[in-house]
């Protein structure tokens, strides 16, 4: 870990000098600093800004302070009642200890767990631009099938963010408000940046618009708990007269960002709520997939998940 100076943020205006970084729960940043992957000169602690409230919005929505801890958010009665996909997504992530530390804003800004990114002794276009991506030839079993580029096929590790993307959440920063889907960028030829945020732009809260549908989160992983997703799905759906009238789908651990499945959603609207429709929608979304040798299994896995989860929601 490189030496740094530490100070506490005193307002939510954002702004950082070059080389500085915001510190919230620290569960990812401190880890990366120990590994030598993150090397900030200055840490600005944003946990004392009073951003730890969950408040109601008009029309049944919620505003979640960026400093609200994952465990508090998962246990919040309104979240459990109205946004079960979010509560479940949070609880599927990490461990009880980590959820007590991790914040809403920090969780959104988690960096990939790609094994090359996490290892400062290895080439990686994300942590050392221009050094190449060994994952395509090497270990990529848990990397992206959608949205990757020849320079990077890392996946976004958050469960919470997948739920937020499905919920059409809006991120409020020190500078602007934007849909959470727009927060993330694909790697293209510059994998070093995960989001469109400017340096020093501080996430202050996340707004959840009301959701008038049942919703759920399902996570697939290699052990029963305390593991990053192999694939996950956040889903919400409404059915009338046997037809899908509204639907939200987002996939986790298959792309460099939480993947909103807009093509599948479009394919489903107005269609009969049947397994055939669900599979056809999944196929439409996954048509763009570019799997490699060891992660091609994610295509049938996500396909199965879509069908199974939507069957559960609509039955």
């Amino acid at each position, binding site marked *: 870990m490189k030496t740094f100076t530490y100070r506490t943020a005193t307002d939510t205006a954002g702004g950082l000098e070059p080389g500085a970084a915001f510190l919230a729960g620290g569960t990812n940043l401190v880890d990366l600093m120990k590994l030598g992957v993150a090397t900030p000169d200055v840490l600005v602690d944003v946990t004392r800004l009073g951003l730890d409230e969950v408040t109601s919005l008009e029309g049944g929505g919620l505003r979640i302070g960026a400093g609200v801890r994952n465990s508090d958010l998962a246990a919040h009665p309104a979240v459990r009642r109205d946004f079960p996909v979010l509560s479940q997504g949070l609880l599927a992530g990490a461990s009880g200890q980590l959820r007590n530390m991790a914040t809403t804003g920090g969780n959104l800004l988690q960096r990939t767990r790609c094994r090359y990114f996490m290892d400062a002794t290895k080439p990686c276009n994300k942590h050392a631009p221009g050094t190449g991506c*060994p994952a395509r030839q090497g270990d990529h079993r848990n990397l992206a099938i959608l949205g990757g580029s020849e320079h990077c096929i890392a996946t976004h590790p958050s469960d919470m963010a997948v739920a937020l993307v499905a919920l059409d959440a809006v991120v409020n920063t020190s500078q602007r408000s934007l849909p959470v889907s727009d927060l993330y960028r694909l790697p293209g030829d510059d994998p070093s940046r995960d989001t469109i945020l400017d340096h020093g732009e501080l996430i202050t809260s996340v707004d959840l618009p009301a959701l008038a549908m049942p919703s759920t989160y399902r996570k*697939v992983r290699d052990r029963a708990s305390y*593991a*990053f997703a192999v694939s996950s799905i956040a889903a919400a759906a409404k059915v009338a007269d046997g037809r899908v009238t509204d639907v939200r789908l987002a996939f986790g651990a298959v792309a460099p960002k939480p993947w909103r499945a807009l093509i599948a959603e479009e394919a489903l609207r107005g269609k009969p709520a049947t397994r055939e429709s669900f599979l056809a929608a999944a196929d439409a979304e996954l048509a763009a997939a570019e799997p490699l040798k060891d992660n091609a*299994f994610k295509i049938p*896995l996500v396909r199965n998940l879509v069908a199974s989860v939507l069957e559960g929601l609509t039955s």
Partner: protein
Amino acid sequence: MTATARRAVGQPLQRVEGPDKVTGAAKYAAEYQVDGDLAYAWVVQSPVARGRLADVQVDPLLDVIAVLWHGNALPLEDSDDPELAVLQSDRISYRGQAVALVVARSLEAARRGAQELSLTIEKEPHDAVLRTDDPDLYTPDVVNPSFPSETSAGDVSVEAPVAVDVTYTTPALHNNPMEPHATTALWSGDDLILYDSNQHPAGVAATVGALFGLEPDQVHVVTEHVGGGFGSKGTARPNAVLAAMAAKVTGHPVKLALPRRALFSMVGHRTPTIQRVRLGATADGVLQVIDHEAYSQSSRLFEFAEQTAVATRHMYAAPNRRTGHRLARLDMPTPRWMRAPGEAPGMVALECAMDELAVALDMDPIELRVRNEPTVDPDSGKPFTSRHYVECLRQGAARFGWEDRDLRPRQRREGDWWIGTGVAGATYPTMAQPSTARVRDLGTQEFEVAIAAADLGTGARTILTQIAADELGVPVERVRLRIGDSTLPPASVAGGSSGSASWGWAVTGACRALRETGKSEAVFDSSELIAEQEKEGKHAFGAHFAEVRVDAVTGEVRVSRLFGMYACGRILNPRTARSQFLGGMVMGMGMALHEEGVLDPAMGDWVNHDLAEYHIPAHADVESVEAEWLDEQDTSLNPMGSKGIGEIGIVGSPAAILNAIWHATGVRVRDLPARLDKILPYL
């Protein structure tokens, strides 16, 4: 014997060090307050798999006390373990090898110093992949520790009416004790004190002492508590030598706790294996052919040849038998012992192949095993001193609920779950090694029993207390047991499931001598008795049963039930014994489902070198796991009548799980671990 005697052994005595462990008072190697200005060391590991370290440049602004590398390291005496010749050569033999050590006044500065160091390395092409067509494969003279590499009887080329010819592969597995290898080293004049996490304090003292040219009485190794080892702490590891060298060079006491990452390269691991098993049988299931060939790897530095196929020599009768081992030397870290080295991977291949043969025969897999029960050890031709394998299978089956099991796969479905059951045999050799114990009558109706044993969590401290209490005819509260210190009477390694037998034998001898002589002190060395003992035909046996469910949507596997039935001689403490069995089975679950060092051949590295990416079973993975045992009497073993129990739980339990996955789904996974991507495409 008095009325109080013979009461402790066999009782479920709570761990005598338990209160210290649940209050945080138990001290491990990196937790001692030492006199002097403590310095911290951080190891610098090679970023390449093969080459030479030409130079190390140290930024003069770096906040460090010293940077040690082969250009300035203290010369060491020769060792028969080249892994301990740390910083003695410019050669780099594997990625992750220790190439430098940074010593600083704080942990933070030491770690940053290691990250900032500039290494000039001449990289060379490397080979990291174990393959059966490697032209450099060879047959080692012996396999660990001293078994013949090849055995043969009859002609394995004969055609049998029903045959299976299958290849199983197991990946590199990493011991990963919860306590990373650690040493706190300090010199007192020319004497060396090491607080070190290991399985053999006396062995570490001798080995490290020799490297620094010290007499045995000049080294003192303290190993009071050990946070697990599973074989990876069986001998001195580089951390002990590096810490001692750093302390010598800098004049500071030095603490070196390896980062978790280093445990994936520097301290040993279980070799990957490729195993071909050919079984042939008559139509009614009588084995005619057993042929087991195992391929494994070692490093360029050191030949470690795992005894992968050795267990197969003792399991089943057949007129035509062959076992063999082939070894590749690769530019990869040196494998060593990991819980049941040989037996654990070897019995995956054999016991899954037996299941495949049972399927080919349309026969119950337990009946197939029973039908091929040998009357004598098939390898030596000598009788087993005790072998209750069939009883373990039969009674285990009754206890587990095997009756009415459909032979066909894919017959049971509950919601999205396919459900199935599987069985596999277990075996582990029964050994004892020379040790010496001392007992003193403290005159206060209390007795001090001393032996340089180590308790890695096996329960050794507790069991030896029980043994001593019975032999002295006193309650356990009167026994003061001292272990974990190299200056105590020499004890053998806590390995090979031989600790209780070896140390218990010495403790028994010392206590008996004290009583017989009536003196206030007695010392007993078991060497002669053990040298005279017949070694053949002594094995523990068992049977493992698993029930799994496989998610039809995702291919995820969960183990609903794991059950082991064992015949392991006399059980000295049912509480600690049960935990050993369960722990072995849980590690077996990890082997079957989770654990894999994922190789990047181009890097020559296992890229998942942390506990987030190298999965060991978590709480949620362990549902019902149970162990029971037969009351097996065998007076030929040792004074306690005990067999080793630390390793048998991981032998066969992975195969039982794999066989259950087949039974649930019809999918035969022959490439461990059985992750969902290997199952889902076939569901």
